[in-house]
């Protein structure tokens, strides 16, 4: 696949590579720099591995001061910067460019402070999402947003993409759980935004930074909200005879004003893939599966479940199966959270991330199947149904250029469909390069120009992750 273009590399910067590398060694020491060609190769891509670009160099700083020193130097040299957490982006957010330095936050993985009375944790940007929950688990707390890659993905990357996850239906996405950041600006200035409360003083710059995909600055530290664990939690499996009945059930649950913690959807191909990996007891005879998690006291959980079961029966539910133990519950989530990776056992895939209004779910699912079938490919659906965040996995053979092109075209058609249905291009994976050229379907020229002007206020020279988010041509207005 090579349809998505990158900016033309700056030959002048590449010609000065030796001097730039020498300058970076001054900032982070030889141990903090990767510059041998062979060693740069594994940094050429992220979780969107169909696209690859070699970086100029990779720096692995350990402190905010080192990040600031790197940024000051690259500002003076006019060199582009691509931030990278764990490199799990599914939209190519961390894919480098030939004239850009990758700034990897993987060595900034310390939890700096846990403040239980104030329900917050201060962490370095390279801390993994799950590590925060692990650190406060024994005290009865957790960090709510839970992207499926939470084992590996970093909080810095989560902030860049405003990541979500299964449990965001109740607890909101990253921006609803972020209290403050330390942000190193394009010129190396270190700033603090937000603080210890959900609504900081002044303009909501934190809301602006969250989801800005590494284009407004480099987040080096974050203060996040901790939430007390519920008294109990129970995932329940609902097997349906068709995708339509399952998606209609989701719409009715939400329309009835019921907000479970999570409503996850899997269609038949996804059920088979995930069950083979996790042995979670998913119903293999169902055409579609909902994993609904309720939480609270036993009485609360029972009451909410009763209402949900009633609604499910109106949609011809075939099986209702409650997890009988913490072990079973863990397996149910393991299967769901491993869905993308487990799909790799069956075929290569690209994962879409469109979001649609719940009233449109049934139609979009049906049309998604039609689009993919028209290209002669297969699709597996596994997604956050409760908030309409769809993840069709288009299955193909990446070594077959014709199939690869078809898969990409089908993906673009699906995302356009989501926008036309009143939804948006990205629920939680970010725009990256993957959806960049579709931004015009989502936004008018005036809207894009306004967004680009905000972006340029932080980074007038467009050096931060420059090939991403905004279509490459027509950036002049900004």
């Amino acid at each position: 696949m090579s349809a998505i273009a990158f900016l033309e590399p700056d030959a002048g910067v590449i010609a000065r590579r030796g001097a730039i590398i020498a300058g970076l060694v001054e900032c982070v020491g030889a141990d903090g720099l990767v510059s041998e060609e062979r060693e740069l190769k594994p940094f050429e891509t992220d979780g969107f591995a169909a696209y690859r670009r070699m970086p100029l160099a990779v720096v692995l700083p350990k402190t905010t001061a080192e990040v600031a020193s790197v940024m000051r130097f690259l500002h003076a040299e006019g060199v582009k910067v691509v931030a990278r957490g764990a490199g799990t982006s599914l939209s190519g957010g961390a894919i480098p460019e030939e004239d850009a330095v990758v700034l990897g936050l993987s060595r900034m993985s310390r939890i700096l402070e846990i403040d239980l009375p104030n329900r917050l944790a201060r962490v370095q940007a390279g801390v993994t999402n799950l590590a925060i929950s692990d650190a406060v688990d024994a005290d009865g707390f957790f960090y709510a947003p839970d992207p499926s890659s939470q084992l590996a993905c970093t909080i810095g990357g989560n902030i860049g993409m405003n990541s979500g996850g299964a449990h965001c239906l109740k607890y909101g996405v990253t921006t609803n759980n972020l209290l403050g950041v330390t942000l190193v600006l394009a010129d190396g200035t270190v700033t603090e935004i937000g603080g210890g409360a959900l609504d900081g003083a002044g303009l909501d710059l934190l809301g602006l930074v969250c989801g800005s995909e590494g284009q407004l600055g480099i987040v080096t530290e974050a203060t996040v909200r901790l939430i007390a664990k519920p008294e109990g939690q129970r995932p329940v499996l609902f097997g349906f005879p068709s995708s339509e009945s399952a998606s209609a059930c989701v719409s009715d649950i939400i329309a009835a004003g019921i907000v479970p913690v999570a409503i996850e959807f899997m269609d038949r191909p996804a059920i088979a893939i995930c069950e083979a990996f996790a042995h979670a007891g998913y119903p293999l005879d169902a055409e579609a599966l909902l994993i609904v998690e309720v939480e609270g006291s036993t009485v609360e959980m029972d009451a909410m479940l009763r209402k949900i079961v009633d609604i499910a029966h109106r949609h011809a539910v075939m099986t209702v199966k409650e997890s009988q133990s913490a072990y079973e519950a863990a397996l149910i989530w393991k299967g769901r959270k491993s869905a993308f990776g487990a799909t790799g056992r069956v075929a290569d895939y690209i994962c879409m991330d469109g979001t649609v209004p719940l009233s449109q779910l049934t139609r979009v699912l049906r049309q998604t199947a039609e689009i993919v079938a028209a290209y002669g490919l297969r699709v597996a659906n596994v997604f956050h149904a409760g908030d309409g965040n769809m993840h069709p996995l288009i299955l193909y053979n990446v070594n077959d250029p014709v199939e690869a092109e078809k898969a990409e075209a089908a993906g673009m058609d699906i995302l356009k469909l989501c926008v036309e249905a009143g939804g948006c291009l990205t629920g939680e994976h970010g725009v990256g390069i993957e959806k960049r050229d579709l931004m015009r379907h989502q936004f008018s020229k005036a809207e894009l120009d306004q967004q680009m002007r905000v972006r340029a206020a932080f980074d007038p020279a467009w050096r931060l992750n420059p090939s991403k988010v905004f279509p490459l041509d027509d950036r002049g207005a900004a």
Partner: protein
Amino acid sequence: MQTTFSLAAVADPKIAEVEAIVRKCVHCGLCTATCPTYVTLGNELDSPRGRIYLIKDMFENGRPADREIVTHIDRCLSCLACTTTCPSGVDYMHLVDRARAHIHETYRRPLLDRLIRAVLAAVLPYPARFRAALVLAGLGRPFAPLFDRFAALKPMAAMLRLAPISVPAAAPPVAGPAQGKRRGRVAIMAGCAQSVLDPETNAAALSLLARFGVEVAAAPGEGCCGALVHHMGREADARQAARRNVAAWMRLVDEGGLDAIIVTASGCGTTVKDYGHLLASDSEWAAKAKRVSALALDVSEYLATLDLPEPADPPRLTVAYHAACSLQHGQKVTAAPKALLVRAGFTVKEPREPHLCCGSAGTYNILQSEIATTLKGRKVKNLEATRADVIAAGNIGCLTQIGSGTGLPVVHTIKLLDWAWGGPKPKELG
């Protein structure tokens, strides 16, 4: 993940295997999170995904190994935590084995590195030589701090520090009749390093099995499993070791039959269970090797199949169970050892980060002593935090490594089980 091997390249079955393995990887990066070296060093290049990429690049371009790839492959512990984490089913073990063999064939290491590896390969797999070397190491111990001052000599210092203060006497052959009604017939692998460092482990397995009515047959000619040389990339030597052991055990299979080949050192168990793959292209040995691999069981797996009685006088001790990587990741044996300890009357605690390697990893704690020492510290801290009375594990490498970092007694699981069911109290418990 996309690959660009030429048709000519994949005509070589070894390259075809590399391609098939790499094609499964979707580059999701989940493996990075549970990789001990990525967690320690924070560099993609020292993660499974980074190594897969380096290996792919080397083979795709038909290049000999170079200093960069050797650095990052050498840092891999082969703990296989990544294979437990990987949702896509990437067979990292055979991929890194292939890379190590390629390094051995195409890369000339610096002189000292070559010498140390040659010495390890010539000594460790041979009990008599190893015992003699340990006696010498006792004399050399005062020189460890001196060796530590020079990077290239650090492995020497690490070796001297790991050597035990006193070397046990040579072990008698591990064989004996069943007591009472015979319920089964097995062989217990004698192996190499464990038989020298801790002969009581197999003695405990033997007496426990005999008490439960299992006959243990001796397999003359059996020796080191080959893991040690295999992990150094010396594939031919590893195959040689495998053939010798397959021959020894197949003689028992043919004369009287065998229910299982019991392995009490899980590092060896992982290798024996993979003999079928190691000798797959050797038409004379492939079928026999496959048979041996199918018979191989960790001692805890075999015990879990027996109907064990209530222990008469269960010891009231709290045990921190350390899951050896070769057992939990290599063989995916996770529940049996803990269930047996509970059945025997112990209270079992699991440390935090149970998936992380202790840094032993065969000769890793000698060849990569700095990373190994960091990992040991982390593991010991987590184990001690359980406030257990004793640490149990099912692999001699872990026992030695963890034992060199804690004041708590560190004992092979089977010795605790043997004690609970009427055997002697392990000497480590005083």
